[in-house]
């Protein structure tokens, strides 16, 4: 999976399941090499609490996660645009099927699991609505890429890097305010530096690769992927930008018919 380090989300690159049961060795390898270790509920052990149990309500944030997710889907212009675009591409998102609130390790906020076509939301690490909005947007961008392109999450560093660049660029991860809150002070073209940095960290987190190699991959695809603003048509720096983009999206039939 691609994981988000810190308060970020990363893409979970899960190897497609084979026909035979995987051995304990294979499972461990996947955990180490593809980051599944950060998502213990995904890698076979399941949740500590039975779904719907009192234990779950008392000791996990699952209910809060579901509520915040619903609010994000209903009110965030970023999320609404992505959900609409995915529906147009044939990948209608159903909350119960394509989202999963789980406990995760460390400070990971979420991820996208390509094998099950699910977005994982780390209920133990997302406690504010604004954060949930951003995580949902970030992961939906991965899901959107998965839907509209032949992304080889498993084998291609370039594809992985590209999706991470796009997600960092378009989700608000690298907004001025977010960067300041991380004590990353920068002005001129700092947005690009942030996007590069976050994509690099994502690759290093999920792949056993040297920093130099990861930097080369990011450099190789950066120009292309930084300028791919689908489905927004612009880099949305705040809700107003996102609302304008959503308005353009809703108007797309008229727009293309009269070009």
């Amino acid at each position, binding site marked *: 999976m691609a994981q988000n380090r810190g308060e970020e989300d990363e893409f979970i690159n899960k190897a497609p399941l084979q026909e035979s049961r995987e051995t304990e060795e294979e499972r461990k390898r996947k955990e180490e090499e593809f980051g599944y270790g950060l998502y213990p509920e995904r890698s076979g052990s399941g949740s500590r609490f039975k779904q719907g149990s009192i234990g779950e309500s008392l000791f996990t944030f699952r209910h809060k996660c579901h509520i915040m997710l619903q609010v994000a889907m209903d009110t965030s212009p970023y999320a609404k645009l992505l959900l609409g675009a995915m529906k147009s591409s044939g990948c209608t998102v159903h909350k119960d099927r394509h989202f999963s609130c789980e406990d995760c390790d460390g400070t990971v906020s979420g991820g996208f699991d390509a094998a099950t076509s699910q977005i994982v939301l780390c209920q133990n690490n997302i406690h504010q609505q604004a954060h949930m909005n951003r995580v949902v947007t970030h992961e939906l961008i991965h899901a959107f890429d998965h839907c509209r392109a032949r992304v080889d999450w498993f084998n291609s560093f370039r*594809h992985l890097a590209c999706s991470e660049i796009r997600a960092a660029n378009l989700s608000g991860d690298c907004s001025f305010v977010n960067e300041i809150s991380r004590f990353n002070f920068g002005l001129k073209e700092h*947005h690009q530096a942030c996007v590069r940095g976050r994509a690099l960290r994502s690759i290093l987190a999920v792949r056993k690769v040297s920093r130099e190699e990861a930097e080369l991959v990011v450099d190789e695809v950066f120009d292309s992927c930084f300028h791919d603003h689908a489905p927004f048509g612009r880099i949305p720096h705040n809700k107003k930008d996102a609302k304008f983009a959503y308005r353009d999206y809703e108007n797309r039939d008229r727009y293309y018919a009269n070009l």
Partner: protein
Amino acid sequence: MAGSQSNWRPPRSCDVYWCEFKHCKSLFNRFHEYYTYGRAPDCQQWKEDYYTCKEWEKNHSTQAKESLQESERKRVAEQRKFTPVWELRQTPPADWHMPLNQGKPQDS
């Protein structure tokens, strides 16, 4: 009347052009253009498109129509000015809607 499409109308409604112009000129956007690209935004085209749109609304001139079309096509071309890293799909992934099998291997 002008043109082969008598039911043509501007790709965006005129007030949207004005909205985009004001937004482009705003302090927020000017800051973010610098923060992202290290330069000042170029907002003039939105303003021109607004006036062209208004002109088309008034007298439905071919020149106004073509001017707007050219401007918007340029915008679309700008958005496509990159070589994609991946191949786009014709159809969505086959397993997107497949139900989850709890813990069991999925058939691809």
